[in-house]
């Protein structure tokens, strides 16, 4: 019996020590590692996350601030900034009127620019295939089911297209990339606009749902005849082919920095809420890639961290746009007119 008592005593002593260790570690961890700068915390978009993570180290060096970012998705980012549990939120889709009301004194600032590639997997066809908006909408509706459909053949004269069935791969999770694509489809197809609509997740008429850009890319690469979509960096990294998209000038453009920048210039005047719509730009932007998008940072106009937040966002839209951060990830530096908009918006933040 004494033996049992001893062992219980040992166990409880160990447990107490462990508990103490946890408490001590917890208090220690609560203190910021560096006390020099402020800690700025943000949450939201997974689309912009790789870029924000690139900024993290640099922000520490340049501003002495600690930047925390949680890549939890645009929706959760909006929820968190609305509840003010973070200093900024990040969303690929601009806030709706309802969301603005709920957020109670928030503003959104465009802070990154990218494009969505329409990937395909068609073994045996070497050419870079062409595609246009109305045909793409019909494909995503499930109305065009074969690769040798006359509508696709017309866009790709001289290419022998096989009788392969088309398989659509789309995101099963909410995503800014989805928003960009369906926003475009709503612009080029009245049927899409009225029956499906624009959101970060929609009720897809056909296709295979997969989680994340990685999931969609996996379905596309493992399925001959598949069509899917992801941000450009993703398709390049995975060596997946993507369509040259016909824009309103009749030109076929790819989602490179030239095409995306040309599209970005098509909307120099943002709406009152700072949102910019650059999908399907008008004819005169003849180099524009039609499925490009801005993504936004959402901040409260009045915040106790105003000074630090202003410094950080200003850094992000200027220094943060440099090629060292953006080029590898295929984000495109913000064009001048948008920078002006962003700077004006930053000036409005106060304590």
């Amino acid at each position, binding site marked *: *019996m004494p033996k*049992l008592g001893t062992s219980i005593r040992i166990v409880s002593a160990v447990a107490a020590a462990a508990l103490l260790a946890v408490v001590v570690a917890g208090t220690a961890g609560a203190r910021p590692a560096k006390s020099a700068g402020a800690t700025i915390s943000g949450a939201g978009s997974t689309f912009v996350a790789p870029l924000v993570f690139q900024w993290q180290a640099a922000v520490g060096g340049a501003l002495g601030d600690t930047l925390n970012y949680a890549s939890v998705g645009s929706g*959760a980012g909006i929820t968190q900034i609305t509840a003010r549990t973070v200093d900024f939120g990040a969303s690929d*889709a601009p806030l709706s009127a309802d969301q603005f009301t709920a957020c109670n004194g928030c503003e959104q600032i465009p802070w990154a620019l990218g494009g969505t590639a329409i990937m395909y997997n068609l073994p045996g066809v070497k050419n870079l295939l062409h595609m246009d908006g109305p045909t793409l909408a019909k494909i995503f509706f499930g109305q065009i089911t074969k690769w040798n459909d006359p509508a696709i053949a017309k866009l790709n004269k001289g290419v022998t297209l096989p009788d392969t069935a088309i*398989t659509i791969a789309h995101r099963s*999770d909410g995503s800014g990339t989805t928003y960009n694509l369906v926003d475009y489809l709503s612009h080029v197809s009245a049927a899409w606009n009225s029956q499906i609509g624009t959101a970060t997740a929609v009720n897809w008429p056909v296709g295979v749902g*997969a*989680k994340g850009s990685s999931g969609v890319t*996996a379905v596309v690469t493992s399925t001959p005849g598949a069509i899917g979509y992801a941000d450009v960096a993703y398709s390049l990294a995975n060596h997946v082919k993507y369509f040259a998209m016909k824009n309103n000038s009749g030109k076929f453009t790819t989602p490179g920095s030239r095409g995306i920048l040309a599209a970005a210039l098509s909307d120099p005047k943002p709406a009152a809420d700072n949102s910019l719509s650059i999908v399907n730009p008008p004819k005169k932007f003849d180099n524009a890639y039609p499925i490009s998008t801005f993504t936004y940072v959402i901040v409260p106009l009045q915040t106790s961290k105003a000074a630090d937040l202003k410094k950080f966002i200003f850094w992000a839209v200027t220094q943060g746009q440099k090629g060292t951060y953006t080029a590898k990830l295929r984000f495109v530096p913000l064009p001048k007119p948008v920078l002006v908009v962003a700077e004006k918006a930053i000036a409005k933040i106060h304590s």
Partner: protein
Amino acid sequence: MSAADISTEPTRRPFTGRRVRFGDVSLQLVAGAAALGVTVLVGLIVWKIVDGSRLAIVKNGWAFLIRVAWNPVPGRELYGAASFLFGTVLTSFGALLIAAPLSIGVALFLTELAPRVIQGPVTALVETLAAVPSVLIGLWGIYVLGPVLRTSIESWLHTVFGFIPLFGDPSAAGASIFTAIIVLTIMILPIVSSISRELFREVPSELKEGALALGTTRWEMVRGVIFPYARGGIAAALILGLSRAMGEAIAVTQVVGGSPTIQWNLFSTGDTLASKIAAAYQGAVTSLQLSSLIYLGLVLLVFSLLANLVAQWIVRRVARKHGVTRGGHV
């Protein structure tokens, strides 16, 4: 030991002794706190789920349970759980149907038939399978298993059993309900087989040897001695496997194809409750969508609970009927 023995035994009443023992008190406290903690935690989770789904319950009511829809576009929002519930039932029971004979077979082989040399390595491998993270199995499912199933197995099943609606046209991509069933089978197989192995090992060798000495074949011994002895335990293991299959989210999300539809063809895309929550929770933009996702969680919680209760009831009935003695605790 009779009741009188217990009451007279002094060590059974530690707190009436001369001194309060530190060890006993702390054991009481630690163990009590642990039990209380779990109870409170479960209560909090259930409360949070009910509270979180309140908006969706108010907006949809019971119609949510029988509606086939998932449209998260603001202004056109319409949600329903029917297709996900259907998918959960189809995938989890499908996986159980395949995994049950396989895993019991593996366990029998390892305890009764396998030579010692391969017993160790195979046991270790089966155990390793249980340790593979589900996200990896899902990844393997979409890159390797899916394409193989699509190009060979599905088309073969369709040609041979095509007259059964379950085996319709092969899937377009590797992602389908069928792929999800196979992935879940792989995930629950090691659980069921490990538990069954332990149960089979517990069967007293006198019983087994006695049966063999009476001239039974190995199969008769297995059927007459091992199975009745371990029946209750195996059923418990199967229930555990079923719960695992119902709750699995990530691996299913990766291979099921995420479409909110009800189709009898196993080779078409579908979705399950857990998989939908895992896929859509982060990206939920509107409060109604978020609430509807939590409502799906509530449906899953209630459904798994019911399935568990029914399964336990069946086990108990079977046990009573056959007068099973040991191992029959569920």
